[in-house]
């Protein structure tokens, strides 16, 4: 005797056509095994359906931030992009600046780029990070 086990779930979901449903009902009336399965599947189905419907976390979606959804997984990319832009601007500025015999290319290297200035009062060259760079970083 074949047991239409797979049809039981569909029956519970109202996904059988009238003919299939009638056939299954007739079978359930004479098959204790399938009738028991029906009860067990009904229990499982009810259990999943009893899971609480969760509220959407506040602030996740709102019309106010429609244009600026804070995608956390993209933050690293944004930081990298900001750093790349800063580095390009600094590199371009360096190209326009007349070369100084007392400043080497190593002095220009830093994570987000740097402006080099010479302060005769304190001797050696020092690296100064301009305000506009740190402001850009803080925004992230």
């Amino acid at each position, binding site marked *: 005797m074949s047991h239409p086990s797979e049809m039981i*779930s569909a029956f519970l979901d109202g996904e059988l056509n009238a003919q299939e449903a009638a056939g299954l009902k007739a079978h359930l009336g004479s098959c204790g095994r399938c009738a028991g399965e029906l009860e067990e599947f009904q229990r499982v189905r009810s259990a999943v359906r009893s*899971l609480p*419907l*969760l509220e959407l976390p506040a602030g996740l979606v709102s019309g106010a931030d429609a244009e600026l*959804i804070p995608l*956390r997984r993209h933050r690293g990319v944004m930081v990298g992009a900001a750093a790349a832009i800063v580095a390009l601007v600094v590199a371009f500025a360096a190209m326009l600046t007349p070369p100084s015999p007392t400043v080497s290319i190593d002095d220009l290297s830093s994570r987000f780029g740097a402006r080099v200035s010479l302060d005769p009062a304190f001797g050696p060259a020092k690296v100064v990070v301009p305000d506009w760079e740190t402001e850009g970083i803080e925004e992230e």
Partner: protein
Amino acid sequence: MESIPLTWEEVARVYGRKIYNFAYRLTGNPDDAHDLVQEVLLRVRRGLASYQPGSFEGWLWRITRNAFLDDVRRRNRRPTSPLPEEVDRWDAAATDPADIEYDRITLGDDIQKALLELPIEFREAVVLCDVVGLSYEEIAMAAAVPIGTVRSRIHRGRKMLRGLLG
């Protein structure tokens, strides 16, 4: 005639909660669910411009499950594995006293744990059916599989849940 939301904000307003619940039940993690909802809404925003009238729900849930599967692939998970690492993460996250809402949700939640042990295809079908409330036809459209496959996945998913829940 199906009413089609015209803006992604309307989609978010009408379907946001459903998408979040789908995402939460599939990932078992509020942070992942949060990210998934945002990813889905971004894809909806991009996709609405080229949306062709048809089954909006089918279109929306196809986007949603594809976003989920893309995330799974990104994490190098095997789509047909039971994802035991998710269960571990669930346990770890549930001990975090700072997240009251999360504790409230997870306290004694054997059903969610059992869901996370299902292969993704079964979990997705069961959640779309029993949590989101889609018909088999809508699930078939979202998953791009025949209705018979949906029927089989839901049945096998529930069968596994029956064993897991005892």
